[in-house]
């Protein structure tokens, strides 16, 4: 047995590193893969062997798919879960079914790749320079002297003023839509000076067909409060899982995710313990201690926890008789910055669990307006994520990149949330 075979035999048992490209309707399923020891969701395609394309995408074409695919090191393969194989990667393995089927396919494909790298997916894009080589100048650099021309077809950096009064080079880059540092599907065109974000434009929205979760169902017919509040607590725990991983606490994030998956109203003690661990991690003192990024006043209207974190007493649950009977009081924080949003959601998890526990069989909503976990859902209005995406450029400019990322995650954005939350009848069945 050669060294290769020996290594391949060992590599069989390695957790499968998967880079996910996630569209509408698959976020929760893919996120839950983190809980499986067989699979490892990685933040950059360079660390993966398998590309997982899951969920629905606006018009079939997936932005950036080919680039991400080619960035995965050989041996690599692609799995398409619950959707159609796109033309770009014809070699993708199509899987339907549930999580177990997906895991089985991922593990099998990984072992196949380790045993026989020749079956690796071929590159999609030709290996050529993005911009054509210009054979001008003595070295082919496209201009004369140190500062002349456009070397390798790329213009030299522009200078732009800094808050320090020094004009330095500005680096325009597009980050996303598939990168571990940002929510899946969020694309930011950023002008960076050092690690300072000077200008931000939000890329194309990936909104897909309408959601079918309990909150959008509740716009049509009354739902039981117990179910709604449990789902709200779950949603916030899933948000916590993502946000904690970005702050370097992926293990604590897993704990939140695991708890969210099995959550019942009787898990109050476990939830309190988790939230205490989050507080003790020093996250408010170390990671979220920068003021700024405040969302307050009229711009916060309808943004649920984001609004309430900014002191805006805006909660559709207040007007529901069922909630009034339960003695529902909105929780408010004042500052409206990233830390306040964290505190707000953490407080609302316990509140929702408590409400869910005491709700009995009361029902609420059903008249077109629902307080969802991200904010107000109406039959035809824009979804909260759409509103927040419009605020991003103004909120992010002037921050260091790390603070910008913390801020983005504190807003709980899902770029695949549809532009208008039309509720159709499919959700009712």
């Amino acid at each position, binding site marked *: 047995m050669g060294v290769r075979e020996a290594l391949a035999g060992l590599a069989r048992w390695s957790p499968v590193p998967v880079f996910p490209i996630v569209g509408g309707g698959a976020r929760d399923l893919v996120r839950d893969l983190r809980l499986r020891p067989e699979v490892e969701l990685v933040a950059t395609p360079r660390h993966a062997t398998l590309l997982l394309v899951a969920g629905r995408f606006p018009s079939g074409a997936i932005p950036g798919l080919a680039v991400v695919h080619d960035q995965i090191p050989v041996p690599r393969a692609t799995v398409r879960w619950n959707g159609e194989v796109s033309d770009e990667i014809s070699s993708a393995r199509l899987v339907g079914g549930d999580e177990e089927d997906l895991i089985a396919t991922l593990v099998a494909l990984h072992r196949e790749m380790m045993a026989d790298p020749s079956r690796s997916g071929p590159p999609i894009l030709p290996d050529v320079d993005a911009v054509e080589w210009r054979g001008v100048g003595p070295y082919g650099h496209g201009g004369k002297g*140190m500062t002349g021309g456009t070397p390798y077809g790329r213009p030299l950096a522009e200078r732009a003023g800094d*808050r320090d009064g020094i004009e330095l080079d500005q680096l325009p880059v597009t980050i996303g839509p598939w990168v571990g540092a940002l929510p899946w599907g969020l694309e930011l065109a950023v002008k960076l000076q050092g690690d300072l974000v000077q200008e931000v434009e939000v890329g194309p929205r990936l909104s897909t067909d309408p959601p079918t979760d309990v909150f959008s169902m509740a716009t049509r017919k009354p739902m039981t409060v117990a179910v709604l509040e449990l789902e709200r607590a779950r949603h916030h725990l899933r948000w916590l899982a993502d946000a904690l991983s970005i702050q370097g606490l992926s293990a604590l994030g897993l704990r939140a995710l695991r708890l969210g998956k099995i959550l019942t109203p009787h898990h109050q003690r476990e939830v309190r313990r988790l939230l205490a661990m989050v507080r003790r991690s020093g996250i408010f003192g170390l990671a979220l201690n920068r003021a700024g990024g405040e969302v307050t006043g009229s711009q916060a209207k309808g943004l649920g926890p984001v609004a309430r974190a900014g002191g805006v007493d805006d909660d559709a649950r207040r007007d529901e008789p069922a909630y009034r009977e339960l003695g529902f009081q909105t929780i408010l924080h004042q500052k409206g910055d990233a830390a306040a949003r964290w505190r707000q959601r953490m407080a609302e998890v316990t509140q929702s669990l408590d409400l869910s526990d005491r709700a009995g069989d009361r029902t609420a909503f059903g008249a077109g307006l629902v307080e969802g976990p991200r904010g107000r859902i109406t039959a035809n209005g824009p979804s909260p994520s759409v509103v927040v995406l419009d605020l991003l450029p103004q909120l992010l400019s002037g921050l260091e990149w790390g603070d910008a990322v913390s801020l983005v995650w504190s807003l709980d954005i899902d770029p695949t949330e549809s532009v208008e939350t039309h509720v159709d009848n499919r959700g009712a069945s």
Partner: protein
Amino acid sequence: MNLISDILFWVFSVAAVVTGLLVFITDSMVRAAYWLMASFVAVGGILMILDAQFLGLILILMMAGEMTIMAIFMVMFMMNPAGLNPMTMVHQHRTSIVAGAGAFVALAAVGLLAEFPDRPVPPGVDPTVDLGVELLGESMLIFESAGVALLAVMIGAVALVSKRGRYGIAEEGSEEPSLEMSEE
């Protein structure tokens, strides 16, 4: 042992001079900064061969920070830090070559031709202990003067670049002065 240290000496010497030259030949500013550091590391190695362990190591230790700062200043201020274009940012080139070569020849001639007393470090001496005793004993005044000079420089440097500079607090958006004089 002597042979090994001779070989090491020549390796380090060639490395120091060649990397020193590469500083001014390479097109990439980051490489230039780290070539210079390589030159310092090589000289630090020679110092260690010469039993001046402490000085050699301190040189290497100091240069890690200093050259990183240099590399970052390069990236900050220079148009071409990555070396995408050839770096021909020189003036009075021929004169400089002559001056450099002249300095080398003159100094080397002094080194080769002048008579220096041949009094090597006696065996059994611990140069690090000697240096420590000297720094904090007889020559404390010189050492302290160097320290005070460094302190003054630190204050001066901070005054020159501090964010509450001559044009207001940086975070509040300081304004640069008009530039009408730079056009002449």
